[in-house]
Every structure is written in C-alpha cells, then in structure tokens.
C-alpha cells in the first residue's frame, strides 16, 4: 500500500508537468482547432533559454536563488511566449482559412525547424543545468519519502493553472478568448479583435510550456534538443484524455496520464508503460468519444 502511494505521488509530479504543457495545446486548439505540434519544441526552447540565463548571468550570488529563479521564470515565459506569437504569425496565420490539415503539416515543419535550430545553436550533446540551485531535502509523509522539489513542482503547476483558469473565466480578455473559441465570426461581430486574441493565446500557451521547460531543466537537470517531442506527445494525449479545448480537462488529463503511467509501470510492466497509457487513452475515447470533460456535440442537422 505504501508502494502504491509512493507511485501515486511519482505519477502526480510527472502529471503536473504534462498538464502544464497540455494547457498550451488545449488553449490553441480551443481558439484555432489546430494541433500545434511545435508546442513541445517551445517547451524545449524554454528549458534552453533557462540554461543560457543560469550559466551566463550570475544573479544567484547577488539576489539569492529564489528571486533569481522567479525573475528568470518570468523572462523565460515572456521570451517563449513571444516565440509562440512569431510562430503563429509565420507558420499558422497564412493558413488560417486553408484546410486544417495544411496547418498540421506546417506545425510539424515548425517542430523540425525549432528543434534543429536549437541543435545548431547549442549542439547535439546533452546540456546540464548548474547543480545545487534548488533546495534538496525529502519530506516524510505517512512513511513515504518525497523530495520537497516534487511537491513544490506540483504545487507550482497547480498555481499556474489556477491563475490561468481565473484569467480565462474572470477577465475581459478571458471572456474574449472564450467567445473566440466558440465562433470567430460572432466574436468579430461583437467587436473582438480575433487576431489579437489568437496572439494572446499563442503567448500564454507557449509561455506556460516554457515555464514547464524551465522547471524540467531545474529539477531533472538534463536537456536535449529532442526532449520536446516526447513531452509534447504526452501532453497532447493528456489534453485529449481530458477533452481537448477544455482547460480543466487538460489539468485533469495531465495528472491522470502521469498516474496511469506510474501505476502501469509499477504493477504491469515498465517496458509496456507507454503502451498501457495509449491503451487507456483508447478505452477512454471509446467510452467517451470527446474525452472526460469534453462536451458531446450532437450533430446539428
């Protein structure tokens, strides 16, 4: 039983990261019905920018670790968000009225471009974040040893998600985002600048992805230009499990996917772990064709 809870916490920590990346997928999908396959690579970009900041600026000695990380986090979110806006301008906006699949291919091309640019700039070798930035102690909770950072990471993911949720639900821009997601034409008629809203979404989603990249870099330490592909795919699964386009769904899906993976690995087989995750995804979609929290849209005839 102790093993079970230990694995549950392992899964939740991984799931928090998935959820944070999944939010970017789900938001972009919500307003553009586009699967942004380059999203995972923006996550990688966040991790690499974090690397550059940490190794080039020695702020930790001057203002202490936590303010530094907070400041860097904000800078990374800003830069990756801008990268997201640029990506949308170049690769997606010209295709907005075209067939949806054309944008998918463009997104795949963008994914290749971003990851290979990173490789050309930073090299193909694994990069490693500086050590000992983060406090490293474990917390004893009901007999389980949980590294403090895992709890902190999960909490931070949840805080970011709650901020995002409140932003989308309570603010004017959030309302505009929701309106745009429902109907571009109608939103435009209501005086919403749809292009601006799409840019906002392409800022927020990648910014969260970048933050996730920074967190992964800080905690796991190891970077590689290909890392975004796998995280991106997992986050996409998470978004679909929860019901793509649905913000609480992405959070739920991410955490659920992390837990499924952890428990699948623990009790069935580690080498079949990903297959188990996909299998569960397929079962969920067979039972609920639009994901757990996705709305069932009946065909209007």
């Amino acid at each position, binding site marked *: 039983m102790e093993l079970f809870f230990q694995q549950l916490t392992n899964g939740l920590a991984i799931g928090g990261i998935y959820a944070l990346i999944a939010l970017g997928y789900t938001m972009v999908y919500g307003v553009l019905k586009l699967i942004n396959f380059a999203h995972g690579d923006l996550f990688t970009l966040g991790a690499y920018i974090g690397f550059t900041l940490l190794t080039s600026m020695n702020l930790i000695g001057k203002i202490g670790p936590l303010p530094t990380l907070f400041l860097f986090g904000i800078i990374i979110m800003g830069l990756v968000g801008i990268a997201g806006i640029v990506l949308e301008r170049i690769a997606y906006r010209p295709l907005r009225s075209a067939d949806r699949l054309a944008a*998918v291919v463009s997104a795949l091309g963008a994914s290749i471009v971003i990851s290979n640019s990173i490789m050309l700039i930073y090299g193909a070798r694994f990069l490693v974040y500086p050590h000992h930035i983060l406090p490293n102690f474990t917390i004893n909770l009901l007999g389980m040893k949980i590294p403090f950072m895992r709890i902190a990471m999960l909490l931070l993911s949840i805080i970011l998600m709650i901020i995002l949720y409140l932003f989308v639900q309570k603010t004017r821009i959030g309302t505009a985002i929701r309106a745009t997601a429902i109907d571009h034409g109608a939103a435009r008629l209501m005086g919403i600048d749809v292009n601006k809203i799409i840019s906002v979404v392409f800022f927020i989603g990648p910014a969260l992805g970048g933050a996730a990249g920074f967190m992964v870099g800080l905690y796991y330490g190891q970077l590689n230009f290909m890392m975004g592909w796998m995280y991106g795919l997992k986050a996409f699964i998470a978004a679909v499990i929860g019901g793509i386009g649905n913000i609480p769904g992405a959070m739920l899906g991410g955490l659920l996917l992390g837990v499924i993976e952890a428990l699948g690995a623990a009790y069935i087989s580690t080498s079949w772990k990903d297959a188990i995750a996909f299998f569960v995804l397929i079962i969920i979609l067979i039972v609920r064709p639009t994901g757990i929290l996705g709305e069932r849209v009946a065909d209007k005839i």
Partner: protein
Amino acid sequence: MNRKYLIWAICLIFFLSPLFLNAYWVDVLNNIGIYAILALSLNFILGDTGLFHMGHAAFFAVGAYTTAILNTMYHIPILFLIPFSGITAAIFAYLVARPIIHLRGDYLLIVTIGIVEIVRIALVNNIFGLTGGSNGIFGISRPHLFGLIIRRPTHFFYYIWIFLAVSVFLFHRLRNSRFGRALNYIKEDEVAAEGTGVDIAKYKLIAFVLGAFWAGMVGNIYASKMTIISPESFTFWESVIYFCIVILGGSGSITGVILGSFLLIGLPELFREFAQARMLVFGLAMIIMMIFRPQGILPPPPRKYNVDQIN
C-alpha cells in the same frame, strides 16, 4: 494530344533512368517509390475519406513482420507472401479500426498515433516471441522471379516502380467508381453522405482495410529489400512522414501524392550538402510549401464523365 505524348516520354525516360543513374540515386528513387505506394494507400483513408489517420506505419509494420516471420521460420518464398502480408495487415486494420471508427477528427488522430506506438512497443518487447525485440528480424531472403534474384538497386527499381504503376492504375480506376465517390461523400459531409444511403461506418472501415492491405504488401517489398527489419523503421514519425506526403502532395490526388513523395523523400537527399542543417532546411521547406500551396501541390482533378455520349 501533344501533352499525352509528353507524359509518355517522361515516363519512358523515367523508366530508363537506372541506365544512366548511379546506384545511390536509383536507391533514392526506390525509397521514393516505396513511400509513394505507402502514401497512396494512406491517401484512401486520409485524402479520399478525410479520416485523420497518423498511424499508418502500424499496418506497414504488420505486413513487413508477417513476411519476415513466415520467410525466416518457414522459408516461404517472398513473392508468395505478398498477398498474405496484405491480408494480415488488412485483418489487423479491421480489428483495430472497428471500435474507433466513430471517433471524430482529432480524436481519431490521437488514437491512430496510439495504435502505431502500441504496435512499435509490442514489437520491441518481442511479442509472442516472434518479432525478435529491438533486434528485429534478419536474414529475410530476396524475391526470386523467373530465376532472377532481385537484389541490386536497379532490380528493385523495376520491381517497386512496376508495382507502383499497377497500384496507380487500379487506384485511378477505383477513384472513378462508386466506391471512390462514396469516400468523397463522407469526406465532404458525413450527414449528407448517410442521407444519400452511404453506410459510413462500413465505407470508413473498408478504406482502412484497403489502405492497410496495400501498406501490408509494401511491407513485404520493404522487408525483402532491406533483408532486416527492426521496430525503429515503424515509428510514429514514419507515419507522420506519410501523412505529410499526402497533405503536401494534395490530398486525394494520385499524381500529387507521388510528387509529394519526390519532395519529402528526395529533398532531404538533396539537402545532404547542408549536413547538420539538413533537417532545418527540410522543416522550413515544409512550412513554405504549405503557405504557398495550402491545398497541396496538385489537388485532385475533377472526375470526368462522358455525358455527351448519353445525351
């Protein structure tokens, strides 16, 4: 009429090209041919029926592994295994597509990604002790045809491109038939297609089964060409490439898909000069091509009907 001669002349030059190309370029053409047939088989599902299917490598894998297992364990000649590989892949496609056929758009997309990944993981884990794990299966024999062993790139060139030509002939006919049109009805509007009496679930399934059948046969050709197959040749990324070929070439268009294979498989070879920047240039090319031709390079031409004859 001139145009027709021009096309035939190009085809002729193309079929004679192994005579003046070196083995490397012939092999590039072979790869293009293999991808072209795979993409054409995906085109039924993605291009004609409009189903977002990103897991086609799974069917390719089933065909290739069927060939490899039966050939290495029971020494059945490769050519006899072509229909068998196709049928196995088709049965597999039927079994996996049936429960998910009602899924819409992006949900189908992620599920098909799941299928190809599950297949790959199963192959890596040496399922049933048959697939050789990550080693794959080696020692697959070459096809024997009338005493000739097909093994050099030039041999394979004719083997693959004649297979492609036959496939194109059949696919072209199929496109201009009740079946081909029905797939298009589904792509255009599922509700209206149902309302005109098309059994949507059945036709979608047939599209999957037919596409898988062809992919399975290509799996046979691929296995005998490489003589060794291993799971990394059947990844999700492979499926992504077929997907891009179809969309870039022009979904639903046979010529477009073939041209798409030339671009997506040929271009990286031309970009070899760029060395490490090769994939970067390739990715940029993908974006630029989509921006300038979002409908694909050659969208499908309208079907022609002999109306005057009836009037």
